């Protein structure tokens, strides 16, 4: 089809554009290599199936926004098909009389797919552009007071428009080209869309049709070449960077269990991250994998309540910072600007409740929360710049072994009137019951601890408590960024554990649960740890206890982030609630399970307050009240405290009350 000159031009253009794209990709990966923890390509490539599966299944897109996800899948699948289409079309242009499997059933199926998917892509991309530019979907915007790069403000719109227009022109031209080809030759019922379109060209001079065929061929394929040099730095590169990022994602025991810091290693001079080059390379890759869909901020408790944090803005800022400094970074030059000047503000870093929603829903496997945890480590350990209330919490943990700052001698006071065996007397037990600081000191927490031991006593569990020997796990210290204090606390607990014999730890605090189970493992302390929801669920299942159903009113369950998203336990607490329902039903909130909305206490936010915006617990309580349930079931003492406060401050405490699932079961056993 192509003339000789056209062929030469195409080949030269292809070489130039592929070359330019290749060079840019090279610079991007050199820039990424300024980060710590080098990408392990051998391990990454071993995950090829994970990447391919994510790409073809589009599975990660359906966690939230399923309709948009499906439209995206049309575009993604169509685009994959277009990889073949483009090769076939180049052959068609270069080899006179070439036709791909003509009059063949497979050829016809291929043409049918191309025809259908061309239309689906066009529909999808037109919808995406309309959504951004005409419908102005708020979910794609990043609201004040979040810090967003100046370049990103205009750059994102430009990038979206350019990428969208490119796809429309590319696929549209290909579609037109097919219709001209049909008009030029004969009807083809395997391409119903293009066939219909070709009817429009009836009456055109054959010469014009040939010319149009050339023009549309060039529009389709020439355009793709021209797009290539721009492609790597555009957000469209996510189609490659996204699956790669999923393959490169750090394997963690749970999402906040980040790699430990070795304080014995004298060569480490920087703890945590304060500059771009202090971030691990997989985290830098995140910036390029991000397509700016902002799913991560849909239920980010900080963003939704109007604080300075948006995990999406964090990744977008990262990409624009990388691109802006690409030449220097690729040359290995470290850029000496604090992350808090361009990636996220200090207040944004303190606004994160480490609820894990952003990590959970990101379709390309980004971990903005990990950046925040690392930035906090720097602010705490290197710069001593953090909320004053958090400082008091650290001092209380250091001096008294609990963040409440109450006497360690009073830790076992909650046991009064209860039969609670002590490890220091028993030395050995099947179950070590861990009440945690909230379970020992908070007035509501104590009632919950009492309910847990009541249930265990009823079930005849062989258990014992550490009593006054227990000390804080260090969860809050670790999430706030005080890794040193965390490790000190862990060391202390390890020494206590070593003195006694037990099979597993049971705790009602999801923070203690994940810290003992996952974070301690980072330090080489392997423990079998079970949350009380799981433990009670098993007691019911094995008929060790048979609580009498007593609840006649509806109940809604608030998923604790550190039990749900961080440890994937959604069923156990629901099973436990079901066991006591008589006439009442379990009503789910608007956001539940993996999409649950945080109570606001996680990540150390229990101990300090970020005043900007609305209060997170009140926002969550509104969702609970909307279910019309009379009882909110909790499975975390912090959630309990936060939601109770939320109910009181929104004036709903007379209507709705909060109970821990252990209290519900205990009541069912006493009736």
């Amino acid at each position, binding site marked *: 089809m192509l003339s000789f000159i056209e062929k030469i031009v195409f080949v030269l253009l292809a070489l130039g554009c592929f070359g330019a794209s290749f060079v840019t990709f090279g610079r991007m990966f050199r820039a990424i290599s300024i980060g710590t923890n080098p990408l392990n390509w051998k391990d990454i490539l071993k995950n090829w199936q994970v990447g391919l599966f994510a790409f073809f299944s589009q599975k990660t897109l359906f966690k939230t926004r399923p309709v948009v996800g499906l439209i995206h899948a049309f575009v993604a699948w169509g685009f994959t098909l277009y990889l073949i289409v483009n090769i076939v079309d180049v052959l068609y242009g270069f080899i006179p009389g070439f036709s791909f499997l003509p009059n063949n059933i497979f050829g016809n199926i291929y043409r049918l797919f191309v025809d259908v998917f061309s239309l689906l892509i066009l529909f999808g991309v037109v919808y995406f552009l309309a959504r951004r530019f005409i419908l102005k979907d708020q979910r794609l915007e990043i609201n004040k007071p979040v810090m967003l790069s100046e370049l990103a403000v205009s750059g994102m719109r430009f990038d979206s428009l350019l990428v969208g227009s490119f796809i429309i022109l590319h696929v549209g031209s290909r579609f037109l080209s097919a219709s001209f080809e049909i008009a030029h030759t004969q009807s083809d019922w395997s391409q119903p869309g293009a066939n219909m379109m070709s009817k429009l060209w009836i009456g055109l001079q054959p010469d014009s049709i040939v010319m149009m065929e050339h023009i549309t061929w060039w529009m389709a394929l020439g355009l793709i070449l021209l797009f290539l040099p721009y492609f790597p730095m555009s957000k469209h590169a996510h189609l490659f960077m996204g699956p790669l990022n999923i393959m490169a994602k750090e394997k963690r025991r749970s999402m906040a269990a980040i790699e430990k810091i070795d304080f014995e290693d004298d060569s480490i001079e920087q703890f945590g991250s304060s500059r771009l080059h202090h971030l691990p390379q997989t985290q830098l890759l995140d910036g390029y994998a991000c397509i700016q869909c902002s799913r991560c901020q849909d239920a980010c408790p900080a963003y939704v309540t109007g604080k300075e944090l948006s995990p999406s803005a964090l990744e977008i800022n990262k990409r624009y910072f990388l691109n802006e400094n690409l030449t220097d970074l690729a040359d290995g030059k470290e850029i000496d600007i604090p992350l808090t000047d361009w990636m996220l503000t200090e207040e944004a870093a303190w606004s994160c409740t480490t609820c894990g929603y952003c990590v959970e829903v990101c379709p390309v496997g980004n971990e903005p929360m990990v950046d925040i945890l690392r930035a906090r480590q720097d602010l705490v350990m290197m*710069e001593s710049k953090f909320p004053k209330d958090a400082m008091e919490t650290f001092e209380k943990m250091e001096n008294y072994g609990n963040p409440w700052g109450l006497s360690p001698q009073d830790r076992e006071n909650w046991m009064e009137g209860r039969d609670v065996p002590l490890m220091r007397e028993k030395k050995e037990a099947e179950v070590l019951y861990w009440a945690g600081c909230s379970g020992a000191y908070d007035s509501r927490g104590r009632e919950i601890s009492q309910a847990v031991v009541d249930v265990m006593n009823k079930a005849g569990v062989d258990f014992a408590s550490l009593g006054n020997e227990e000390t804080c796990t260090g969860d809050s210290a670790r999430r706030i960024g005080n890794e040193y204090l965390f490790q000190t606390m862990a060391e202390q607990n390890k020494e206590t554990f070593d003195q006694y014999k037990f099979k597993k730890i049971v705790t009602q605090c999801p923070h203690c649960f994940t810290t003992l189970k996952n974070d301690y493992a980072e330090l080489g302390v392997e423990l079998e740890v079970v949350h009380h929801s799981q433990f009670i669920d098993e007691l019911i299942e094995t008929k060790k206890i048979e609580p009498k159903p007593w609840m006649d009113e509806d109940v809604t369950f608030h998923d604790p982030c550190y039990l749900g998203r961080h440890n994937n336990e959604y069923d156990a607490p629901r099973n436990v609630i079901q066991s006591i329902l008589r006439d009442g039903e379990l009503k789910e909130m608007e956001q539940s399970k993996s999409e649950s909305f945080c109570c606001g206490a996680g990540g150390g936010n229990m101990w300090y307050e970020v005043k900007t915006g609305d209060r997170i617990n009140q926002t969550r309580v509104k969702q609970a009240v909307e279910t019309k349930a009379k009882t909110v079931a909790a499975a975390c003492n912090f959630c309990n405290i936060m939601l109770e406060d939320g109910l009181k401050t929104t004036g709903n405490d007379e209507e709705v009350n909060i109970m821990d699932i252990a209290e519900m079961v205990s009541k069912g056993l006493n009736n």
Partner: protein
Amino acid sequence: MKIAVLVKQVPGSESALPLSPNEKWIDESSVTFVMNPPDNFALEEALLIKEKNGEGEVVVISMGPSRIQKVIREALAKGADRGIQIEESDDIEKDPLTVGKKFASVLKEENFDLVLSGLQSDDTGMGQTGVLIGELLGMSTATLAIKTEVKENKIKVKRELESGWFQWVELPLPASISIQSGLNIPRYPSLKGIMGAKKKEIKEILLSAQNQLSNLQSMDKVSIPQTSKQTEVIEGDTEAIVARIVDVLKKDIKVI
């Protein structure tokens, strides 16, 4: 500028405080010890003065048994340059003049320009150490500082008086100043500070027993304050109620 900060380790405000069997002090075995909070402000003030000056040395000095090394390390982690521990048996000295003399004998050797101390300790609350040391060493002395300004060979101090009044005084150096709590925000040690503190020097000094004792005061007995609740419902007409309330405030509670 060479600054000494006197730091004491005291039972934390939330600590258990069981009495010792002889009821002369508390049973320290189950006590949670912390840095005396007013001393923390004195330490911060010393560090701020040094940082503002751009040079100098902050030496933290504490007296007590080996447990007090913890607060000295804490002060070193926050930025003090070195530490001195005046060794003491578990039976800590409670007579202020003896304490003052012991500190003075160590401070004398070092020629400090400035001696800062918290206004009082949270355990015995005598509030005399800073003043006594100033007197014993012939230094100018001020108490209850809520602001300090160091100038060439002198220090300007804003002192808190009663009823919201304050006073500016200018003292020649060397001076011993006791610091009122709340004049600054004490820092949290950075990790570099914590690591660095492990390598900093803590000099342990064992004083010979003679000469320093005064024994003007001794602790005979300590006891837990007895608390009791009394409720009286005042009835009658307004005049009778007012009269009774005034009576109670005057005679029983003695506040008017």
